[in-house]
């Protein structure tokens, strides 16, 4: 027990507030056991997180038992911890995270009363943590080394003292970004390239389509402007809508919004798209946005109806008119191996050739085809995430434990350029920063263009006198992501300040005038 000082410190700290992710894990007795076992010297990061492939929101993940049995690790000596420590110390954008949640340069209650929940390595979850400043936040994270940080709502009072409020009305969630979660596992019935937690560039296209549709609708329909898309580290994305109005939405409004966006519902196998005609403008616009993707990224890339069974379940079943269905079935049986694109084209071809029953209505066919398109390309949301004010969501820039990738924000202007398999990883970052130091300009990471240039000009890394201080993240491929995040946060803060001036009442035109007059 003597050697495990660090761990004990954590455990003792965690105990009062820790809430185990499942009933079995992290009972006090368990913790004791863990600590005693905590002497395995070498554990690789991958081993440590083995079985922890659930990406998000799996509060009750079935793997907890497994993890709980795994020994807690000595914080100070393990190499993988060292990596995580380096990351939190040198790469994590504390300042911008703080500004993002605080909406102002000086600490406000938006930050002070915000719940953070830290997932520790012994699988305990410390909920209701809050910090007065970004420095305290950083310090605590460095002390506890959480493998995952989640962000909750802003409460009416400081979450850390929540037990001391006598009546429940004194401590209520007040504001949180409106969040959306898209997860590729929800596409498993139409993904042919990968399944479960695996992804590739082909099926990532589903996410790209989803982001396009959601982003457009949130901006055009609801008038939101500050939407941050964040890669969840493995197989999904999160949206954080940060506009003030979105943050203060009540549960019933969030619920309404979520169902406004929900089109594909129910279980795989049945008819999953039920929309009214005439189509709502949001849907017809989405169809326009998705048309091209549907042809290229779904029909051609995925070929979802290659097998006769799939073609039947996903396509034929949804078409009107028995005779048309029969004609198509016959045709496809006659030429096996027909691609999905050809099958899609066959529908219209046969319908026009007159292989239809007497009661056939071309409008029904069009409707059915629209439904099929929506089922295959429209965003599939995990609406539970969006409905509740007090739902926790993984913070941007944490490391996904399973893949080691950083949960980086995605620039919506360059959606197609985003490659989820190529985002910075923990190990990669450390390598990059080492290379930069060692090689000066030449070997610098490509992302750190300016840093590299300066380094080359000085001839050696040491001549930092005339060069302004280069932060570690600027030396790595994390740079563009943090810069994007910074510009996002700056724009958000600017709007927030303007809102403060105009007292949230006047028209948009007024705001700009006032903001300007403030600047001069």
């Amino acid at each position: 027990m003597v050697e495990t000082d660090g761990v004990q410190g954590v455990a003792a700290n965690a105990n009062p507030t820790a809430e185990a992710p499942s009933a079995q894990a992290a009972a006090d007795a368990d913790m004791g056991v863990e600590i005693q076992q905590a002497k395995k010297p070498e554990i690789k990061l991958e081993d440590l997180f083995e079985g922890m492939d659930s990406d998000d929101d799996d509060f009750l993940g079935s793997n907890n038992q497994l993890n709980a049995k795994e020994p807690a690790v000595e914080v100070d000596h393990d190499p993988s911890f060292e990596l995580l420590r380096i990351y939190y110390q040198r790469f994590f954008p504390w300042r911008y995270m703080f500004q993002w949640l605080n909406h102002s340069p000086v600490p406000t209650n938006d930050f002070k009363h915000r719940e953070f929940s830290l997932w520790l390595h012994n699988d305990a979850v410390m909920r209701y943590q809050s910090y007065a400043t970004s420095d305290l936040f950083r310090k605590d994270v460095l002390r506890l080394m959480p493998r995952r940080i989640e962000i909750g709502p802003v409460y009416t009072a400081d979450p850390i003292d929540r037990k001391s409020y006598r009546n429940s009305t004194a401590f209520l969630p007040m504001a949180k970004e409106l969040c959306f979660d898209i997860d590729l596992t929800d596409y498993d019935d139409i993904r042919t390239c990968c399944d479960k937690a695996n992804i590739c560039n082909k099926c990532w296209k589903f996410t790209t389509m989803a982001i396009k549709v959601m982003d457009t609708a949130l901006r055009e329909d609801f008038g939101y402007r500050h939407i941050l898309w964040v890669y969840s580290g493995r197989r999904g994305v999160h949206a954080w809508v940060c506009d003030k109005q979105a943050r203060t939405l009540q549960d019933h409004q969030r619920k309404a919004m979520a169902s406004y966006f929900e089109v594909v519902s129910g279980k795989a196998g049945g008819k999953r798209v039920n929309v009214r005609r005439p189509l709502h403008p949001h849907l017809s616009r989405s169809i326009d946005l998705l048309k091209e993707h549907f042809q290229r990224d779904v029909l051609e890339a995925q070929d979802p109806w290659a097998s006769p069974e799939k073609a039947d379940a996903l396509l034929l079943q949804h078409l009107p008119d028995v005779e048309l269905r029969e004609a198509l079935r016959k045709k496809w049986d006659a030429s096996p191996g027909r691609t999905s694109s050809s099958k899609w084209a066959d529908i219209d071809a046969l319908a026009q050739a007159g292989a239809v029953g007497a009661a056939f209505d071309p409008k029904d066919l069009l409707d059915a085809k629209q439904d099929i398109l929506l089922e295959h390309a429209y965003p599939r949301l995990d609406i539970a995430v969006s409905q509740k004010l007090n739902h926790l969501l993984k913070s941007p820039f944490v490391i996904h434990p399973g893949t080691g990738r950083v949960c980086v924000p995605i620039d919506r202007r360059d959606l197609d350029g985003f490659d989820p398999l190529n985002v910075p990883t923990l190990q990669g970052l450390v390598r990059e920063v080492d290379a930069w130091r060692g090689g000066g300009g030449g070997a610098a990471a490509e992302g750190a263009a300016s840093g590299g240039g300066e380094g080359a000009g000085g001839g050696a890394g040491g001549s930092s006198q005339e060069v302004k201080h280069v932060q570690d993240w600027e030396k790595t491929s994390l740079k563009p992501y943090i810069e994007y995040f910074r510009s996002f946060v700056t724009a958000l803060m600017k709007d927030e300040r303007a809102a403060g001036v105009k007292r949230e009442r006047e028209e948009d035109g007024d705001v700009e005038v006032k903001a300007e007059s403030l600047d001069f």
Partner: protein
Amino acid sequence: MNRIDVKRRNVVDHRKKQFADPSYKETQYPHRLSFYSTPPTADITLEQFEQWAIDRLRILAELEACSFRNKSPAETALHMKPLLDKYLPLDASSSGHSQLHAQRQKDHYSHFILRLAFASTEDLRRRFNRVETMLFRLRFQADDSRERAAFVRTLNLDWEPVSEDEKRELSLQLATTIGFGYGKRAQQVMDEDWCKVDWMRVPDLIEGRKVYVKGGKAYVPGREQQSMVLNAFTKRLEQALEQIAGALPRLDEDDRLTPILNHLSKNFIAPDSSYTGSGAAIEGAEISARNIDNLSQHFPMCMNHLHRSLRRDAHLKHFGRLQYTLFLKGIGLNLEEALAFWRSSFNKVTDDTFNKEYRYNVRHSYGDVGGDSNRRSGGYSPYSCQRILTERAPGPGEAHGCPYRHFSLENLTTLLRASGVTDRAVLHGVKEDTESQKFHMACNRVFEHVHKTELKRAKDDGVMTAAQLETIVHPNEYFKRSYLLKNMDKQKEQGDVKMEG
């Protein structure tokens, strides 16, 4: 409680103020309709107090009865007209009626008296709010359109009318939200009175994608505006009633008003009074987990369907479980048996999953866990038809709701046939009932068909009183009546056998 508007208080010299009697400006009633935001302040006699309240109560009770009988709005209006004229007349400002002020005063005062009488319990508040909203809707619809518009303007609902130009510009988008079918849409768009509101104010319209939204503003067509006014009415009344409920214990009242108020609220007991677990239990019936299959023959279609779905899938979704659990609780299944029932029914899940995901819900429904208030009130009460019909339509894969309302005719007929209702005349009647939205009627029709022999005997023997043969408006009532009717026979036979022996 509602504070007296400062402006309405007569200004008295502050030096004399402590000796002055409070006196208020006389209330003005510029509009026929009212949101009842200011309480009355003038004196009335005790007789007036009681009489006015009783008159209004009569109207409200009749309205509620109309809704139970599923009368259409037009039928209700027709039915209510003579009654309203008699007990609670309210004429338009343009009528120039000499009694205008007196009418409006009576309406105003009686509303506030009943607020006092019905604020005490959640159940009463909900019912009072529902019928008051019905009354308001009735009057709102009957109101002169110009006066109505003037009234709506005074509500400060923050609406912005959509200009003709904007209508034209957005006519394609707006047309998609105006209704079913194609045709002369563009014209319809121009004819309709559209208004823009913040989308947060109409979440229910957003939820079903019923309106067009742009830049955070929802474009609401005229006919939905009515529902917005009604929503605002309901919401404000709800808040006001809750405030009153909070203040009631402090109502330091002598013995003049309290007996009247109590008397009034007692008279407001109607068919959907809640069932509690113990009260509805039937003597002699074996209500246990393993007997449910057998008892399910007495279940109304909604519960029957839930039971079938449960047996078929070994699973029910959340709201199905909730509706069914509460019903079972209502027929007298106790918590242990309920847990046993659900455990054995969900035979595809492990004990672990069951304990983790389902057990709590069942216990919560019984008031075994949950907040203090939940435990004290013994959980939720079983859903009445009213609630099943109006709250939460089932989505795909869900089995709750009312089959007569939420099923397609095809599925309904299949279900009825599967439950042994094959008589063509009955099926046809059910079809007509559901088409005219009379879901109770359909359900009662099926009940009468299934129990026709027993009912006849019961009537002949005079076993059941007329009250007991009224329209069923609660699933638990259906079960109780069905069980009693079917077993009236058995008990009698047993009795006979005994006597012979």
